[in-house]
């Protein structure tokens, strides 16, 4: 054993002393800096998860509201806003649910809140009810005509543009503005009440458009004509031409 020790060169001995010192130092000091639960469940501090999990909640969730406000929740459950949580309009309600007396909630009564969702924007999906606020009874708060818990138009919309605003705007600069929507879309009456269940139809044949646009159609002279026999068969017309703004101007 001693002979092996003698065989090790001097510089290796000194170097190994230094290495041992560093390793021992690391082992002694590192527990002071690394929390005891670090690495328990992975490369992180396990108690951090408990800390994040114990964050104070502000939104309490929609289920609890009905416990006290059953009357409103019954009305709301039948209307178009049935899937709009109470806290969307009334704000975070955790404290109110804990202590209804001291923490009261607000209800937005001005026009500016409703228009966050219902102002016309071209990016909004078609079918979503939208208005242009500056021309839609500009001086009246929305709630004078619409019950926010069961919103319905005061009269069933006569105009399709109430929900299909982008199409209506596109159509307004098109020659087809003179056609009523129902000329091409057979619309079940229930579509106005339950729009997604009862959807309007689209023309399914080429002959439908041909009624005005084919060579032998009995229609106004100014209307562009096409020979249905040679033009783009295999397609229904609206698969190439956008009927709300046909490119022929």
């Amino acid at each position, binding site marked *: 054993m001693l002979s092996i020790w003698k065989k090790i060169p001097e510089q290796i001995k000194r170097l190994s002393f230094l290495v041992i010192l560093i390793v021992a130092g690391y082992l002694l000091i590192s527990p002071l800096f690394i929390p005891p639960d670090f690495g328990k469940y*992975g490369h*992180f501090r396990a108690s*951090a*998860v408990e*800390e994040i999990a114990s964050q104070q*909640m502000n939104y309490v969730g929609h289920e609890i509201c009905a416990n006290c406000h059953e009357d409103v929740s019954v009305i709301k459950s039948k209307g178009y806003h049935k899937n709009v949580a109470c806290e969307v309009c009334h704000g*975070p309600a955790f404290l109110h649910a804990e202590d209804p007396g001291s923490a009261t909630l607000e209800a937005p009564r001005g026009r500016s809140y409703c228009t966050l969702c219902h102002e016309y924007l071209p990016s909004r999906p078609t079918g979503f009810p939208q208005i242009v606020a500056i021309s839609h009874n500009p001086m009246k708060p929305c709630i004078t005509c619409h019950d926010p818990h069961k919103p319905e138009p005061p009269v069933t919309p006569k105009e399709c543009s109430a929900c299909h605003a982008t199409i209506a705007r596109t159509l307004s600069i098109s020659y087809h503005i003179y056609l009523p929507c129902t000329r091409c879309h057979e619309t079940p009456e229930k579509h106005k009440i339950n729009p997604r269940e009862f959807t309007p139809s689209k023309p399914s044949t080429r002959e439908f458009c041909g009624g005005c646009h084919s060579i032998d159609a009995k229609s106004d002279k100014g209307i562009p004509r096409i020979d249905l026999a040679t033009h783009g068969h295999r397609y229904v017309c609206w698969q190439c031409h956008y009927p709300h703004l046909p490119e022929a101007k």
Partner: protein
Amino acid sequence: MRNNESSEKQNRRKFIQHFLFACASFIIPGIIGAQELVRKVGTWVLKNGYVPSEHHWGMGIDISKCIGCGRCVDACKKENNVPKEPFFFRTWVEQYRFLENDGVVVDSPNGGINSFKAETSEKNIIRSFFVPKLCNQCDNPPCVQVCPVGATFKTADGVILVDKEYCLGCRYCIQACPYGARFLHPETRIAEKCTFCYHRIIEGLDPACVEVCPTQARIFGDLTHKASPLVRFKRMNNLSVLKPSLNTEPKVYYANLDGEVR
């Protein structure tokens, strides 16, 4: 001569044996340690009885339902005390507008928190939609890889969290996130991000943004439970994720997403 050869063979055999033992002594403790960690994580129960390893959370976002009202952005800030001023968002909404001349305009004024304004030049728009964005809770998260101190990490339920006590504020993770989902909190100087409202989901509630979404454009659920709304969402829609080529394996799934969105 023969003897010599056989002893040489034995020597070689011994050497290989020793070599393999030496290799095993390095590898086997690692395997055992990893198995031990997996077993430990399986028994991990939070204070309220929530078992992280039994869940795997994800979110679905249906682009065709988003109306860009910004209620999610507002609710997220209120729920998580995110600084009110612009540029600090855990979730935000972008508006995409495709113009006639093939141009695309993307904007997100104040994260969409006050909804959007119709532009006068709208007649040139041929197609337009909103894209809500948030931390994608990647299954293979670049931000976790780069954190030098283990302050950001993936829990057993797949949510990426930030340890507020441990974060140095070095911003490595902000650089690494390909989705721009992280920011440095101006006061606490720690890297912040969406936690899927971890304090809510462990109580069985939805994240605040999902709770207030008026059109159900956001769906939240557990990927390990067959009856979760998210599993139905995944079954019924054409899905994509943001930047799939980066192999981050996001757990925020978009339905009807345009290829232009990144």
